């Protein structure tokens, strides 16, 4: 048992460091945010430029095969790269859904010509992809979706609505799950496509989130035509394709990021308690810090266990499934507690007044979404119970019923 790099890992780390030194700006104490001072367009341009650089150096998707611009590398190499890159002002965001979920689905189901056309531009950040699955009436139960695809000659005609589509407003392409047959049980009547987001009839409306930001969208489809050649796998096989995407989602979503123990301890050191001294001396505060520290360490070392299994060529154990269900509520609880420490001034949500403390407010308004996106807390517990512990599935009232005969609720 050790944390040492193997000779190969050490060599890889050295290569990464050398490359980053030449190509990126090292973080200092005062500049930790690559976005500082940039508007949306500038931030995107900067992220795209960085992505192209990474891709050209084959650091963008290290585990992908060489023919697709990867290195055929190991998950540990990806971690090593991430550890090193985190010390530089390297842009993040925009590309994770495409590269983590959509493109792997394309690789599994699109034609060689299509992959030759789409993989490289996605890898280099020239084209951004989004995932068009959830609908007003279908989220956790995404197989209950309504958006219709009807065959018309060599095309399919799409009508319906998607919702919560992250990044749709700046995406170039998307993978789209549709209903092609309402007369069979819901899982059996689905078909997957990919499409150009600029196709006529696609309308994207940003949704304002509870935080006031708008990262996701409603996407409306009105008589949108998709050529049959953009169907991924057979008609009616959409659920199987979607599972490929969703399996990759669990790997892509990962841990919640945001202020953590160090930031909380820093806040607690600098906050005066009712009794005078710094509030970090209060027992209730120390108890909470310890709990979250231990949870965080537990996740970190669980990940190390998973990586070790992968590097030995074993299938990782089920332990990998706990990451988001622990980290997202933890982020919410930790940041709520930080606001509590600020006492009455915790109501302020204004960077000019709060300074660095704003990170706690911002994450506190992001964490609820993290507990929903990519599987809610409840769905993840179902998954652990059923797939890890082997407990029986829920009683299903919809299994053998044709989609069209299912009850439809609030949407």
């Amino acid at each position: 048992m050790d944390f040492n790099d193997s000779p190969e890992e050490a060599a890889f780390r050295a290569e990464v460091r050398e490359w980053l030194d030449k190509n990126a700006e090292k973080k200092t104490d005062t500049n930790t945010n690559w976005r500082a001072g940039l508007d949306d367009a500038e931030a995107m341009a900067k992220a795209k430029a960085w992505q192209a650089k990474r891709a050209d150096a084959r650091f963008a998707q290290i585990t992908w095969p060489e023919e697709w611009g990867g290195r055929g590398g190991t998950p540990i190499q990806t971690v090593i790269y991430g550890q090193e890159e985190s010390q530089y002002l390297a842009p993040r965001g925009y590309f994770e859904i495409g590269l983590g979920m959509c493109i792997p689905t394309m690789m599994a189901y699109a034609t060689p010509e299509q992959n030759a056309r789409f993989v490289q531009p996605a890898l280099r950040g020239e084209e951004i992809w989004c995932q068009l699955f959830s609908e007003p009436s279908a989220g956790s139960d995404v197989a209950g979706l309504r958006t219709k695809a009807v065959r018309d000659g060599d095309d399919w005609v799409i009508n319906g609505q998607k919702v919560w589509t992250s990044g749709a407003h700046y995406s170039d392409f998307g993978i789209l799950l549709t209903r092609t047959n309402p007369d069979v049980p819901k899982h059996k009547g689905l078909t997957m496509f990919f499409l150009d987001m600029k196709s006529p009839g696609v309308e994207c409306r940003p949704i304002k989130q509870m935080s006031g930001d708008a990262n996701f969208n409603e996407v409306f489809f009105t008589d949108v035509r998709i050529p049959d050649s953009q169907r991924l796998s057979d008609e009616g096989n959409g659920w199987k394709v979607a599972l490929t995407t969703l399996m990759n989602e669990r790997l892509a979503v990962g841990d919640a990021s945001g202020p953590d123990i160090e930031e909380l301890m820093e806040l607690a050191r600098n906050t005066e308690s009712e009794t005078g001294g710094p509030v970090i001396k209060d027992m209730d505060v120390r108890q909470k810090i310890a709990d979250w520290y231990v949870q965080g360490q537990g996740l970190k070392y669980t990940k190390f266990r998973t990586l070790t299994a992968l590097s030995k060529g074993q299938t990782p154990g089920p332990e990998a499934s706990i990451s988001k269900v622990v980290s997202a509520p933890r982020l919410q609880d930790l940041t709520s507690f930080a606001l509590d420490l600020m006492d009455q001034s915790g109501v302020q949500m204004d960077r000019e007044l709060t300074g660095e403390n704003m990170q706690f407010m911002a994450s506190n308004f992001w964490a609820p979404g993290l507990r929903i996106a990519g599987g809610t807390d409840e769905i993840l517990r179902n998954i652990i119970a059923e797939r890890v512990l082997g407990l029986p599935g829920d009683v299903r009232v919809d299994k053998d019923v044709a989609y069209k005969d299912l009850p439809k609720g609030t949407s």
Partner: protein
Amino acid sequence: MNFDFSDEQKMLRDQARSFLEDKCTSQTVRTILEGDEPYDKELWAGIAEMGFLGAAIPEEFGGLGLGHLELCVIAEEVGRVVAPVPFSSSVYLATEALLAAGSDSQKSAWLPKLAAGEAIGTFAVAEGNKPATAKNVNASFDGSSLTGTKVAVPDGDVADVAIVAAKSAKGTALVLVDLNGPGVSRRNLRTVDPTRSYAELTFEGAPAELIGDDGEGWSLKERVFDRAAVLMAFEQVGGSQSALEMAKEYAMGRIAFGRSIASFQAIKHKLADMYIKTELARSNAYYGAWALSTDAPELPVAAAGARVAAIEAYGFAAQENVQAHGGIGFTWEADCHLHYRRARNLNLALGSGRVWKDALVTRLEQRNAA
């Protein structure tokens, strides 16, 4: 990176599991719970024969000369079966104290016996209903003898040798006392977990010798307790895993409202939470194992983390296992309370979660300051 036990260590775990599952059934535990015997002597002899007591003791002192990683995998199995033997007191505490600070003659005198299970060791700090801090140590050591009362001492009724925290001219000292010698009296205590005994030890001028440096007793005690915390964390993880498995097995077989209760979401999510806490504890324990086996400077933080996570996991799993069983879970007849008792015992034995959380933050503060 290689954050896992080796194949040999896993083989040892399998060996320990099949041995312990065979020799320590719940009936074995109940016999001690309900009878007058303080621990299961046959099981103890078997464990000694397997070499488990001396896994981390060098061969020159009668042990197997393996390492602490090996001891960790054994500890997990001891926890799974709720073994009614003084393993933690003798191995994690007394043996570790001797290995950490014993003189050659102390080691030669005691380690071979401890490894063979011929002697049982323990460690005595607390003095009744007050926090077990250095300030509250009143037992006193005058250079050659010990006077004072220690309560509650784990396995104090059956131990042959104790490492005792005492006041000395230079501050706090740890002293080694032969409990079968003069000046020692013992009184059994009733506790939450009769499958592991506790005693009050009274010393009246009992012959005692210094172990480690005089005046450095408290920091040595902390060092030993950190090592014990990691080992005990594995025992707690084993217990937690076993309570989870019990809950699962029962839920799968129990029918209510026309279906298995394991198909009810409230039960599924309860078990998922047991699983999550157990895995978080396991991963923290692994980190502790790494720090312990390499004598890393991270040990104080890693040990406290392992202890806090293990307390959380075992406490939760043991308690919710009772609930998953419904009425039968509340009976003497069901085995749920064996884990409930052992979890309460282990979760307090080396100091409570509250105390360790406070210590953990202190250590994080020290690390940040350094």
